[in-house]
């Protein structure tokens, strides 16, 4: 369920203040009130409710995947999502890209003095929904408040933990010639949604962020075969960056086909107008997988049946030639080199 800014079915809890005060981060009474009234109703579970300084959990022995990420996206509400669900989905995905089943999240908030409670409430609501959908539990958290002007409304850090099955060994250095490259859906939606929503009132676009948790898709993929070589979500720097990272880590060449790259017409138009290459734009609900050639079509079929995978395509393959370089066959049949973008095309998009 995407965040609906007009969702009033769960009303804002009543507190003494309708905006965040410095005292809410001071650890005293106001802090406790804030946690009890705003956070626990959203994230409450046995572990969190104990409100210890740490969460203690038992895990099976074996490989653990841990990932942390901070979210500073501007604006905090953008078409198709907000910073909260981005924070949950982003870390769930980072953990899941190892093949792990994400289990627990920690959440740290840095709130700006003066942030309306209503805004915080909406963000927390969408985090609750995102966490439930992904099947992860938020077991510990932290809240700090900084002076007005010291951060843009709020920043969120999430850390996730998951368990990697013993028979799964996914790594960017494991690609082999003959592998097929699968992209799970349309490119550039998130980055362009954020970019176009920053342009101001005169710039209108129908592009929505694709923020989504992909762990269920990855579980299905592992059921098809545990022998996935590489998995990554192409966030900052887009598909171009992820493919270059694969090519360099594994010291192989990657050849993709321009016509096979899925893109929504509205996203494509926005990229054309702003002069941006969609391959360089962030995605928050897509993955790139490198799988052995013989399992590729079964893997593609499985991904296409998943909730966020209907537009999945095989976009290329791993080759012996041009090690470390990513090339693309253009619609006209020529060969073009796809480099990582030089710098920050679109700052603060996640």
């Amino acid at each position, binding site marked *: 369920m995407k965040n609906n800014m007009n969702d009033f079915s769960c009303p804002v809890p009543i507190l003494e203040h309708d905006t965040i005060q410095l005292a809410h981060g001071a650890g005293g009474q106001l802090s406790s009130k804030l946690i009890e009234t705003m956070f626990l109703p959203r994230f409450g579970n046995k572990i969190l409710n104990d409100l210890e300084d740490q969460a203690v959990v038992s895990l099976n022995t074996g490989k653990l995947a841990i990932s942390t990420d901070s979210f500073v996206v501007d604006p905090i509400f953008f078409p198709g999502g907000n910073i909260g669900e981005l924070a949950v989905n982003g870390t769930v995905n980072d953990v899941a890209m190892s093949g792990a089943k994400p289990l627990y999240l920690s959440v740290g908030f840095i709130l700006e003095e003066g942030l309306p409670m209503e805004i915080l409430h909406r963000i927390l609501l969408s985090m609750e929904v995102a966490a439930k959908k992904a099947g992860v539990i938020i077991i510990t958290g932290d809240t700090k408040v900084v002076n007005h002007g010291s951060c843009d409304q709020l920043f969120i850090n999430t850390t996730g933990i998951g368990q990697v099955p013993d028979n799964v060994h996914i790594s960017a250095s494991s690609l082999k010639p003959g592998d097929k490259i699968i992209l799970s859906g349309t490119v550039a939606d998130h980055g362009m949604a954020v970019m176009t929503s920053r342009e101001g009132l005169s710039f209108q676009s129908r592009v929505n962020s694709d923020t989504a948790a992909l762990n269920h898709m990855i579980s299905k993929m592992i059921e098809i075969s545990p022998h996935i070589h590489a998995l990554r979500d192409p966030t900052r720097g887009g598909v171009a960056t992820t493919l270059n990272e694969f090519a360099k880590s594994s010291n192989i060449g990657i050849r993709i086909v321009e016509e096979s790259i899925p893109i929504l017409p509205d996203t*494509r138009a926005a990229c054309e107008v702003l002069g941006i290459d969609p391959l360089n734009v962030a995605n928050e609900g897509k993955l790139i997988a490198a799988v052995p050639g013989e399992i590729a079509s079964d893997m593609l079929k499985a991904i296409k049946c998943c909730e966020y995978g209907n537009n999945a395509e095989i976009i290329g393959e791993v080759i012996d030639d041009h090690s470390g370089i990513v090339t693309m066959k253009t*619609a*006209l049949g*020529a060969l073009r080199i796809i*480099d990582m973008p030089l*710098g920050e095309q679109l700052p603060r998009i996640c």
Partner: protein
Amino acid sequence: MIKYLDEFRDPVVAKRILEAIKNTVTQPWVIMEICGGQTHSIIRNGIDQLLPKDIELVHGPGCPVCVTPIEVIDRALTLASKPNVIFTSFGDMLRVPGSDNDLLMIKSTGADVRSVYSPLESLNIARKNPSKEVIFLAVGFETTAPGNAMAIHQASKEGITNFSELVSHVLVPPAMESLLSSPANRVQAYLAAGHVCAVMGWQEYEPIAEKYRVPIVPTGFEPVDVLEGILMAVEMLERKDYTVKNQYLRTVMRQGNITAQKIIQDVFEVTNQTWRGIGNIASSGLKIRDKYHHYDAAKKFSVEDIHSQESELCMSGVILQGVKKPNQCPAFGNECIPMHPLGATMVSNEGACAAYFKYQRLK
């Protein structure tokens, strides 16, 4: 389907035109495009890879980013570093290095440098910030001149005094003549920049085509446009037709856009201009007329005396004329790479040296 865009990217039509080119050409020809947008399209679509070997494409000085003299950047940096200044520019100028720095670097040290899509946006910033001086880096060919002129015209009409432009405008026909009159010239036909011609028309090219006996084809930007322009140029070369023929039918008319030309005339006048990599070309630039001198940032803030030296190692002048190839330059790949370019042709990724640098990895 994006109308008037996708039809001109149709691979089926493109392949058809390539076939026609192959069937038409009977001897080697050298064709130059003077337009950054066309260069970009050629590289992006791999058109130079697909053409028959007999056709050599030379990328001319058509990228305003590449041909902006280094001293204009240095002047821009001085202006942007002043307190109380909001310095605005098109995004692609922000990374161009001056003698020591670039606009993005000084932005990171606190200068108020903003990227805009239009000079009217810059004028709006001036309206909203009456206590600041807003300066716009007005760089470009004839295509951007009408917009830059309009911003000054508007500012004057509204009595806005905190807006000015740092101008470095270049004109294509004098540059074309300069290249053609060089004894080392190898270029036999030109693709003229489609949107420059949309503004200025193609009348100015007719005497050039006749005098130097070169076919000139105003051409669009999409791959089908560029290929069709090349086909027309080759057909004209093969039958010794030294005139101007328009490929970009849907957008360009012989007389161009008269309204736009009028306002360019009102605000700007022709002047001598330095082209990075080539040198000074007489009457090849535009400067703000005296009556609008209040809007001339170079005069207003006294940066006219800033002069800079180009790198002595750089040979982009001969590369821009197609006389030498990038890998024949001793600095290529050593002192001069895209991350730290020495001159015009490595500065922008549409420059001949930057493109060569990128694609040599495929060999």
